[in-house]
């Protein structure tokens, strides 16, 4: 299953980069959302997929018998999800403000600051 997911993650990266390369700022944001999903899923897959064994110690027991999904990457991804959400919220509002201030959603028209 990890193998299949590797292709899925590859596709997510492809889609996100393609979207980020578009000139519309809305597509840029969608690209960013896909990108963060791609990275999270990558960690999840690379650390190994385990079916039906969540890292929870059962009621009454004090330890887990048998193998269990690796909890550490889950904790990392949880952190990463929340961070990505914060960043995206910011980015979404940023592009709206940019649109209001600049008056276009075309990224190619936003190059005053460089040249």
């Amino acid at each position, binding site marked *: 299953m990890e193998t299949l997911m590797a292709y899925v993650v590859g596709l997510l990266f492809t889609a996100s980069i393609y979207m980020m390369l578009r000139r519309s700022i809305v597509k840029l944001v969608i690209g960013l959302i896909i990108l963060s999903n791609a990275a999270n899923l990558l960690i999840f897959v690379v650390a190994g997929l385990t079916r039906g064994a*969540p890292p*929870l110690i059962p009621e009454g027991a004090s330890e887990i018998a048998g193998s269990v999904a690796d909890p550490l990457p889950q904790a990392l991804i*949880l952190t990463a999800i*929340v961070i990505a959400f914060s960043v995206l919220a910011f980015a979404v509002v940023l592009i709206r403000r940019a649109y209001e201030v600049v008056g276009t959603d075309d990224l190619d028209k936003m190059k005053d600051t460089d040249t």
Partner: protein
Amino acid sequence: MKTNTLILHTAALAIMPLQLMFSVFLLLRGHDEPGGGFIGGLVAASAFVLYAFAFGAESTRKLLRVSPRDILAAGLLFGLASTIPAFWTGQAMLTALWWEVPLPGDGYLKLSTVLIFDIGVYLAVLGTLMTFVISLMESDE
């Protein structure tokens, strides 16, 4: 973005208390089962978001009583506060400390810096999301 449909109003009013209670439940049980400060905070926030969609930003502010920013600040300070007890006992920062407070009758309340921290997370998530939503809605009006 104020939506004046009756269903939404009723639903918001009916569901919100449940959602809030559920979120506190999620927060408290998080150490042992799926849940915790994040998830609890997210659930609580979605309750208020629903309310805000139904009744508008202004009334949500009134309902919250305090500014979302203050909730956020409280959350962050709670999070930091949980690091301090370890200083007193001379241990590394963020070392968890546990106290068991006997409850009237049977049982103990497990109090810990970890819980304080989780409450901080809960409040920070709630405060952040409410800041997003309320400021965005207000800017539209």
